[in-house]
């Protein structure tokens, strides 16, 4: 009845295996860079959002609403195709000589995810009793230093579970980068499919790798929580 012959060798050896492998490498690179950047940017935006200086707060508020509420695909196209019109010609020329597809994907993923991360961090910070901040400030710590030494180490610890979610989402969202020609995992899987018509095998391999990456991210974050953050809190 099922007139389809499975051929797993297509994706486990030879040229097509190499393609999938290179796709895996690009997805890993894209995710790792964007996760690191989006976390840092998310921290900065969260701090601005909670700052007492109005311009910062307004900026952060606008940033959050704008980037959380527009589709990631639109943002990817904006950074890749749309930025052309607003950048000077010299900058465009320079960008094209770099790996601009990859860069545009990193920018889009970073900015999009940082908006979610900022909100998670903010809610983590809000769950730390405000007396701690008051105590720190009255002991002579500046706002930034109190955040750095007192509040954030506790807040980040509380933020780990939602952060895992954001990082997982980012890794999965990175597959949208294929729409601007970044040769990541999904792109390569489709490539293998169009050369061999073995779509089932190609997409199974991709699914398996995404799953493995998800477990890797969850595992690393949990380990970080247990080995680094728990001792800080003194459990």
């Amino acid at each position, binding site marked *: *009845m099922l007139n389809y012959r499975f051929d797993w060798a297509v994706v486990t050896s030879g040229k097509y295996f190499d393609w999938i492998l290179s796709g895996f490498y690009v997805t890993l690179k894209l995710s790792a860079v964007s996760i690191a950047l989006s976390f840092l940017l998310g921290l900065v935006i969260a701090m601005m959002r909670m700052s007492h200086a109005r311009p910062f707060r307004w900026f952060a508020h606008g940033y959050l609403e704008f980037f959380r509420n527009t589709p990631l695909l639109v943002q990817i196209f904006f950074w890749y*195709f749309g930025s052309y019109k607003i950048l000077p010609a010299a900058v465009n020329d320079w960008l*094209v000589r770099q790996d601009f597809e990859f860069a545009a994907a990193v920018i889009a993923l970073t900015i999009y995810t940082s908006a979610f991360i900022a909100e998670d961090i903010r809610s983590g910070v809000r769950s730390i009793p405000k007396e701690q901040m008051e105590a720190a400030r009255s002991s002579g710590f500046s706002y930034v230093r109190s955040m750095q030494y007192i509040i954030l180490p506790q807040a980040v610890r509380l933020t780990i579970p939602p952060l895992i979610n954001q990082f997982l989402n980012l890794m999965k969202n990175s*597959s949208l980068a294929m729409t601007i020609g970044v040769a990541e995992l999904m792109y390569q*899987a*489709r*490539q293998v499919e*169009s050369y061999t*018509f073995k779509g089932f095998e190609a997409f199974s391999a991709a699914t398996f790798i995404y799953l493995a990456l998800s477990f890797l991210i969850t595992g690393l974050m949990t380990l970080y929580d247990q080995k680094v953050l728990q001792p800080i809190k003194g459990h």
Partner: protein
Amino acid sequence: MARKIGVFVLALAMVGALCGAALAGDTLADVKKKGVLVAGVKDSLPPFGSVDPNTKQFVGYDIDFVKYIAKKLGVKVEYKSVTSANRMPMLMESRVDILAATMTKTPERAKQIDFSYTYFLTGQKFLAKKGTVKSLKDLEGKRIATSKGSTSEQNVAKAVPSATVLAFDDYPQGILALQQGKAVAVTTDESILAGQLGKLEKSRATKGKFEIPDIQISMEPYGLGMRKGDANFEKFVNDTLLEMEKNGEAKKIFERWFGPKTDSPINRGNFMITADRMGLE
């Protein structure tokens, strides 16, 4: 998101494979019974298949062939947009009955679906800024845009191995990348490029700035795609194509979309629809 779509497509493909196997074989009788021929066509690729901005109707070379076939069958046509990457699954999962979507006949594809006689013959060329590309040498190590899942992508990777191939979801994005200098050329079949060049010529900002240099890297015979082993339907379609050549309808359609007064003039040369096996050997 795209990963989810992938899984969804997989699930559909499995269901489709089951259904497809169950009812393979008689599209002709099926279509007559339904009274509708569902055709997979391109929707933004003039002059083959695009949506007329005024009438909101599908128009183009591919469309006219489908219309004629449907008229002969005495049924209505329903158009479904397909891309180079999804058209074969759409056909195999029975979501369309026939593909008229600028599809090159190749032996690999012919293992999955059946092709009609060649109804259009073209070759793969390049579209570039005027004077920038004179031979294949000018493309070495450069970035060339094309469309995912097309034969163009596979041919150019072979013809210029040192080039970086940027594969987009469809050709208009490649043209945008070319305009923005993100690629030095767009490569695909001359007939499609002629249509894109026609669009560029119409806009004042890009008029006279692009060209299709005379560099051909492959022959591309187009066939209509049908499900494998669907002998009745295939015979009907092939006979209709031969009839269209004989009564001059095929030539008329060609002149309508590629004649000297159109936006994408090309020469039909001595091409004729015959009982050929071009591209399949």
